[in-house]
């Protein structure tokens, strides 16, 4: 769909369901909750479809609403990181290329971060957004976003270099 044309709901769903669902899944670490949240976001979009000026506008709206709904959902249901950093198991061997165990361990480490840094990491590494875009999306100062990124990366790097022996 070209940006600038009025979007069709089914096309928007198929085009952006992976983005919406994955933000929720990586943030909540609960597949059922992520699916329900993603459905609610799209149903809200359906109710407000007439307000969408373009496909780009709809994509931006979906990402913003998903991010804020995830944070609200976690606060409402008092979802704290279910895995303490110390409880994340160490991989048995050194990491190979695209190791599924390492990926799972990284996802768990990200899930163990506090709410805001967790969302900053997801937006940076899942959505590949620049810190400025993340700051705008989260209504957060740019330096706070950069600080969250640096601290979270430092924590992950330290955890890995100490235990796995992989130098980052």
């Amino acid at each position, binding site marked *: 769909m070209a940006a600038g044309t009025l979007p069709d709901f089914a096309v928007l769903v198929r085009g952006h*369901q992976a983005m919406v669902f994955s933000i929720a*899944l*990586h943030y909540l670490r609960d597949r059922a909750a992520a699916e329900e949240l993603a459905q609610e976001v*799209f149903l809200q979009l359906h109710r407000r479809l*007439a*307000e969408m000026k373009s496909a780009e506008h709809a994509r931006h709206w979906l990402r913003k609403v998903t991010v804020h709904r995830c944070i609200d959902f976690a606060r409402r249901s008092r979802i704290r990181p279910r895995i303490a950093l110390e409880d994340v198991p160490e991989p048995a061997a050194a990491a190979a290329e695209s190791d599924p165990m*390492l990926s799972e361990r990284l996802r768990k480490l990200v899930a163990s971060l506090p709410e805001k840094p967790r969302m900053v990491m*997801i937006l940076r590494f*899942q959505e590949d957004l620049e810190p400025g875009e993340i700051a705008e999306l989260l209504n957060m100062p740019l330096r706070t976003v950069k600080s969250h990124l640096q601290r979270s990366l430092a924590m*992950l790097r330290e955890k890995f270099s100490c235990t796995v022996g992989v130098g980052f």
Partner: protein
Amino acid sequence: MSSLEDRLRDALRREDPGPEFTARLLARAAAAPALMPDWWRRLAAPFRPAKIRWAAAGVLACLLVVAGAVEYRQRQARIEGEAAKRQLVLALRVAGTKLHLARAKVVELNGGL
């Protein structure tokens, strides 16, 4: 894959929820209640931004407070007016009784002469 950033991108890559998700969502959307009438959405459109909604709520709250204060003052004035009226009627009654007694006394004195 060398850097932590690349590994994070790989770990946090997007995942499609699957065709069942799409089918369930489109069915729910089709069954969703009808949208608000067009005239209502046009009427509500200026109040859609959150800042304008808050400002409108603030103005409405101020109007309610002012209207409440005016109504309270009017009610107080009415109560005070009614109390003053009751006191006046009582005073007139007392004065009337006194005049009646005085007149009776005068008549009595004149008759005695």
